């Protein structure tokens, strides 16, 4: 091998930068986990609000979803990093990553939650209401548990997307995988090994999630078939 992928380039990269890549990998992982938890919480809150009888709750949920679904992630990250300090809000790139990516994917998963709620038979709501359940109690005890199997596969797909999207933090010195790979390449003009390694690292996180999503999907379809006409 020669050129960008010559063997000494690999050796140099791993010996001088292996530890940094590992740190960056762990940082990507922790940003992903925190952002995912935030996204899940937001998606349930806004997904439930989107089906509420209260018009204001529905409107707020709609605005949230439309805003984040129609705005490039990178702009949001740049605004937080470059503009917020001007109004005296200074956030670490780590925090910006967790919050913005959490908000961004929360909007997508909220839509998944909403379609999940819509897929539940209207009779389930009526049975709960006629027993004196409030809207929130109906969601908590009757609707959300039933839709878990339905929404889990598309949510897992979103989780994989979320991990990949943490790479935008490279633009604001996020010290995650993409940033680490890029800055090594930039300072050594040795781009091949760090970029390939970065790709492999993202793949290592995302592939199991996607595989899991497919497995869940198959299981769900079998379960729904089994439930048959009674739904």
């Amino acid at each position, binding site marked *: 091998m020669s050129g960008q992928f010559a063997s000494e380039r690999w050796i140099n990269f791993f010996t001088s930068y292996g530890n940094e890549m590992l740190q960056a990998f762990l940082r990507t992982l922790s940003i992903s986990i925190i952002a995912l938890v935030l996204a899940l919480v937001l998606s349930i809150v806004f997904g439930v609000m989107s089906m509420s009888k209260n018009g204001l709750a529905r409107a707020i949920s709609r605005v949230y979803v439309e805003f984040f679904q129609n705005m490039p992630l990178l702009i949001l990250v740049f605004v937080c990093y470059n503009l917020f300090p001007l109004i005296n809000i200074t956030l670490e790139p780590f925090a910006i990553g967790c919050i913005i990516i959490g908000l961004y994917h929360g909007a997508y998963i909220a839509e998944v939650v909403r379609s999940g709620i819509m897929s539940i*038979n209207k009779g*389930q709501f*009526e*049975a*709960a209401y006629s027993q004196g*359940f409030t809207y929130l*109690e109906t969601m908590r005890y009757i609707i959300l548990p*039933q839709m878990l199997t339905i929404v889990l596969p598309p949510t897992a797909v979103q989780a994989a997307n979320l991990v990949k999207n943490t790479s935008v933090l490279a633009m604001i010195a996020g010290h995650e995988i993409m940033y680490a790979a890029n800055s090594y390449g930039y300072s050594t003009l040795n781009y091949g090994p760090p970029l390939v390694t970065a790709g492999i690292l993202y793949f290592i996180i995302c592939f199991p999630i996607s595989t899991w999503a497919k497995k869940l999907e198959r299981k769900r379809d079998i379960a729904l078939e089994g*439930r048959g006409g009674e739904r």
Partner: protein
Amino acid sequence: MSMIKTENIHKYFGENHVLNGVDLEIAKSEVVCVVGPSGSGKSTLLRCLNRLERITSGKIYIEGKLIEHRESDKNILKIDPKEVAKMCSELGMVFQRFNLFPHKTALENVTIAQETVKKTSKEIAEKIGLDLLEKVGMAEKANEYPSRLSGGQQQRVAIARALAMEPKIMLFDEPTSALDPELVGGVLEIMKQLALDGMTMMVVTHEMGFAREVGSRLIFMDEGAIIEEGTPDEVFMNPKNDRTRDFFKSIL
């Protein structure tokens, strides 16, 4: 004092005038059977009573207390939502398609509202639940999920579930229409037992045999209005209105 009283109820679904000035009064321990062609508004009337649908205009009293008063789809009566929920929970509802919670066992179906709405402890709720399942002949299936039960068995669990909230009035919305013929009898038998126990009941049904044997009053509805009412035998044997006569002719 009447258990349920409605005054001049109207209900529109868009342009569709589904209830056209219904006045109804049901006394304690009465079993009122409502019959009529499909689209006559009988299910809607039932669903308006416990607010699954909101009336366009009119008044609804439960146990003499005004709980709903609307004109042109606007509330005239302002009432605490908690008060409303409490009133509505005094109306037990049994649905045509059972609507059991599929992720809960038969027993959990009967206990969850007690625990969630009434804050009954798990032990007491389970004891009440098992008693009720026993009453509807489903004690042996307490730990089965609804998907493993027949339609008739599901409907019996659904009746137990409604009874768990200790309703003063039971509303039945075509409770046997979705059942295979051989399963109808068991469900009707339980309803008959309830009636004998003195439960106030309003039953939308096509089961004329049940209406005549158990019903204390038969109401015939058409085009959103009560056309004729009286004792079941009276209405059934000697209908005064042409539409009533045509209807009975058509279902026999």
